Every structure is written in structure tokens, then in C-alpha cells.
């Protein structure tokens, strides 16, 4: 008896990712998120219209990997540049992809875009440190975490309390969708993907700014193997609730 084998491709390398080898460290969330963003834009059929503005940091050259139009922005300016491009190109899907330290270095760009009700999307990968600087403390570094600039661990008395980015941004009227996702497990990535999609829809429907903070792993600077780094992020999230907040 002859057995007929039928195969159906259910998963593959996202077509929008270029074949350039990514420079991210093993287990880094930027790699996960570049794939997620490429998948979403492909699924929505928006690759012709999408423009990514990448903030300063380890992901500043993400335009090399996601095969859409892109800009490597000056430090702290990605959200402002995205808003300017959107003003010039109303039909484009414009998003800023920034790190926690980059966005916190100048929140005026977020406040300004929210004040004007600019229709853009902000994806903030929060890996709780300044990855590109070799692991310096970022404004979002949790208490107790040791970094190169808080070697004994961040303390409220020493370096001050961490900033909760989503909570800070949520209060502005121009931000019409706000969520915190994570990338520490396949399930969390799936939920995050749905959040980023919603944030894009917010822009497409002309409602306002969609802001998605994504808790991420920086195994290199956490000094942990990738799996343990993911566990650490899960622990951090006990203090920072995930989910849609607006």
C-alpha cells in the first residue's frame, strides 16, 4: 500500500526579514522582536507603507534586518522623527522602535506626540539596562539589579526608584492604546504580537498613539545564560504587571 504524504508549511522564516545575519547576542529580545515586527507587517500586507525609526542602542541598525524603509535615529529622538515622517507621509505606517534608556533620555518626544495626538506607534523594548553601553543602569533598571554604574545593585537611596514607562505614558490623552508585553516565553511573545498589532491598528484607524512596552532579555548584561535571563525577566514582571492598560 502506498502512503500519500501531504505536507503543509505552517511556519517559516518571515519573508520581510533580510538574510543578513543579526548581530544581537544569543537570547537577546531584539532578535525576537525584529522577527515579530516583520511577521506582523507581512501579515497585514503593509510592507510597502511601513517605516521603522530605530532609536539609539543595540537595535539602532534594525533597518538592516527588517526589509522595510527605515531610519537610524539620533539618541532620544526616534519618536520625534517618526512623528515628523508621519506628518509628511500621512499614508505611511510609522513606528518608533526604542529601548528603555533611549526613550527615557528624552520623554519630551513622547509628550509632544501625545499632546498633538500624532498617529504613530511606539514599541519600547525594555531590557532594564543600557545594553549598548555594556550594561549601564537605565532609568528603568529595577531595584537590586547590579549594573556597571550601580555595581552594588540599584537602590532607592543611591540611584533612585525605577521609572515604570507604560504607567508614565498611559496618562496622556493622545496615547489611545497602551500595553506592557514580554518576550520571556513563547506564550508571552504571542500576546505581545497581538498587542503590537493592536497598536498598529490604532494608527491605521487614526485614533492616536499606540504604545507597547515589551519586557526583554539582555542576557549579556544580566550575566546569565539565555534561559535564566528569561526567568529573571519573569521575576521582574511580578512587580510590573503585563497586559493592556488602555
Amino acid at each position, binding site marked *: 500500500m502506498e502512503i500519500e504524504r501531504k505536507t503543509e508549511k505552517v511556519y517559516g522564516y518571515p519573508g520581510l526579514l533580510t538574510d543578513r545575519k543579526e548581530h544581537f547576542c544569543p537570547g537577546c529580545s531584539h532578535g525576537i522582536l525584529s522577527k515579530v515586527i516583520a511577521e506582523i507587517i507581512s501579515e497585514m500586507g503593509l510592507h510597502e507603507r511601513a*517605516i521603522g*525609526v530605530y532609536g539609539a542602542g543595540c537595535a539602532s541598525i534594525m533597518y538592516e534586518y527588517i526589509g522595510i524603509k527605515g531610519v537610524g535615529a539620533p539618541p532620544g529622538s526616534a519618536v520625534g*522623527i*517618526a512623528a515628523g515622517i508621519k*506628518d509628511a507621509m500621512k499614508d505611511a505606517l510609522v513606528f518608533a522602535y526604542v529601548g528603555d534608556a533611549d526613550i527615557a533620555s528624552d520623554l519630551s518626544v513622547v509628550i*509632544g506626540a501625545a*499632546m498633538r495626538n500624532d498617529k504613530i506607534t511606539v514599541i519600547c523594548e525594555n531590557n532594564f539596562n543600557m545594553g549598548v553601553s555594556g550594561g549601564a543602569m537605565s532609568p528603568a533598571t529595577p531595584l537590586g539589579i547590579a549594573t556597571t554604574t550601580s555595581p552594588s545593585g540599584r537602590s532607592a537611596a543611591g540611584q533612585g526608584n525605577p521609572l515604570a514607562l507604560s504607567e508614565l505614558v498611559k496618562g496622556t490623552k493622545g496615547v489611545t492604546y497602551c500595553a506592557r508585553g514580554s518576550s520571556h516565553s513563547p506564550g508571552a511573545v504571542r500576546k505581545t504580537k497581538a498587542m503590537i498589532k493592536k497598536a498598529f491598528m490604532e494608527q491605521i484607524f487614526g485614533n492616536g498613539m499606540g504604545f507597547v512596552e515589551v519586557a526583554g532579555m539582555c542576557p549579556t548584561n544580566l550575566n546569565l545564560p539565555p534561559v535564566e535571563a528569561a526567568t529573571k525577566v519573569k521575576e521582574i514582571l511580578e512587580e510590573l504587571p503585563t497586559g493592556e492598560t488602555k
Partner: protein
Amino acid sequence: MGVIYGKGAEIIGESLVQLGVRSVYGIPYPPISELHEYLAQKGVFRPAASTREMAALSLGLSLGGERTCMVTAGTDIYGCMESISYAVSYEVPLTVVHVGKSIPGFGNPYPYQGDLDVLRGGDFPPVVFSPASVEEIPLLIAKMVEMSERFLVPAVLYVDSALFNMTGNVEVDAGSPKGEFGFRKNDRRYYTTVYLDVTAMKKQTASLIEKYKEIDREALCESYMMEDAEYAICAYGISAYIAKKVADDLRLSKKKVGVLRPLTLSPFCSIGEEMKKVKKVFVVEMSNMQLFRLVRGQLDPKVKVESYATHGGLLPERNDVIQFIKGLI
């Protein structure tokens, strides 16, 4: 358009509107708030939350292929220098109207020319235009936009706060048609300033150096009664406006004085040859001798150069300059 009567601020605003600018982001404060108010009446002004945000938004508009212009005064220009550098590297246009007011720090809103070295600084400075009358503003704004779009470099209209507040009957035209740049041009997938490979960085810098050599050839300078001049005054902006009146007065008392007025401060015209013919050069400016150092550096050491400089928001006073020059010739 046609002839409009208004202050320098309004002439600048109308020139931008006529050039098809439809978004100018900024933060209104004296003295530039009058320009923002004019632009708001025309539906062109949009609020920014900080100087850094204004610079980022303006860079974003340029990357999106849209004409825009930043407006700054005094020390605010420092906050825009990063964007200016990025625009050079992205190779997109970026224009700025910068109003010279008294510095350091906040100082006061009165006229000063203390930002010359800042605007001309670095390897790849913006092209800097300096009007010497309200009537010249529309022409030089159009030229600034045209050059910025032709060479894909930043350009600045450096206007002191005296001209910004002076009134005149001025012809404002539509200017040059919008160039194609940024994503609208559709010739590049991405814009970056990161060149981790030193060979690639060297290549980019070499190509910018070549471009700046071409830009150098676009230096503009006005010679006023220089044909037979024995003495020359070198000045720009409102100081040049006053210098011309001084030269007129000195000619009445048979002193052969002319004026050499750079219209572009960067690139700066070659004045060495012309100045060899004169006995002495007087540099009139409102700064701590920034123009003097620039002029001195271009001239043969044998040419004598004298400095007349005012500070604190005071204009060079016509009779005072006349007495100063008379005392030295």
C-alpha cells in the same frame, strides 16, 4: 504673492508659507514668538514639547520629503546642532531661521551676532545666509531652501533680532519648486548615520568633503563702493546695513570707504585679493570679535585690520563708527 508690509518676523513667515511649508514645529518665546504667531494664523505652526523634539520632528519631515524650517534664537541653536549633523550624514535638507539675540545664557532679546563661530563650526557646517535688510529676507530664504534641497545639506538664515523687528514693504515670491528628497524620492530603503566599517565611513566622509568643495564655490559677497576704496568695512547683517550708511557719510567727507559684505557666512567668500588693495580694514560686528578673527585669518599679515564691536544688545552706532574710523585713517 506680491508686496506685503510687515516686520521681519512676518516677512519670514510669509516667505515660508509661499515656499509651500505647511508644518513648522516650535516653542514660542521672545523674540521668535511673533514668527510663530504669524505661522499659527496661516495654519502652519505646530507646537513641540522641547527644542530636541522640534529638531527631531523637523528632521522627520525632511526624511519624509516635506519642506519645513526650524526657528531658533540665542542658545536654542545648540540643541539643534545634533540634527544638523544628522541631516548632513543622512543627506537630507534641513533649514533653520536663527535669530541672533544677546548671549551668553538667556541674555536679552536684543540684537547680537554671537553665534557665528557656532554656526560655522565643525567639518560640515550648514550653509549660512545673512540678510542685511528686510527686503532681502524672501530672496535669501528662497536661496537657503534651494541650496539645502540641491546639495541635501542643512542651511541657516542667520538674522539678528533687529532685522527680525524692522518693518518694510517687501516683495514675497513663491520661490523655487519643491525638490524631491527623503523617502519621497524613493531611491534609498533606509537612512542611517552608522558606518561601523571604517572603510565605508571614510568613503562617506570623502564624498561629503567633495560636496562641500562644490558648496564653497557658492559663497556670496556684496561689494559696496569697493571699486576705488582705500578703506574697507567688513560687516554682515544689520551691522552691514549700518556700515553702508557709514560709508555713504564718509564718502561725503571725501574718505574713500567701501563695504564688503558676506551674504553667506558659511561658505565664507575669499576676500584676500580684494582687501590687498586697501590701506586698512575695519570689521564692524556685534560679537566678541568672531568676524574679526575670520577676516584676519584670510588676509595678508601686512593688511591692517581694526575691530569695532558692540555687545549686550547694542547696535553699532552710526556716528560712533564714523568717529572710530576717522580716528584711525
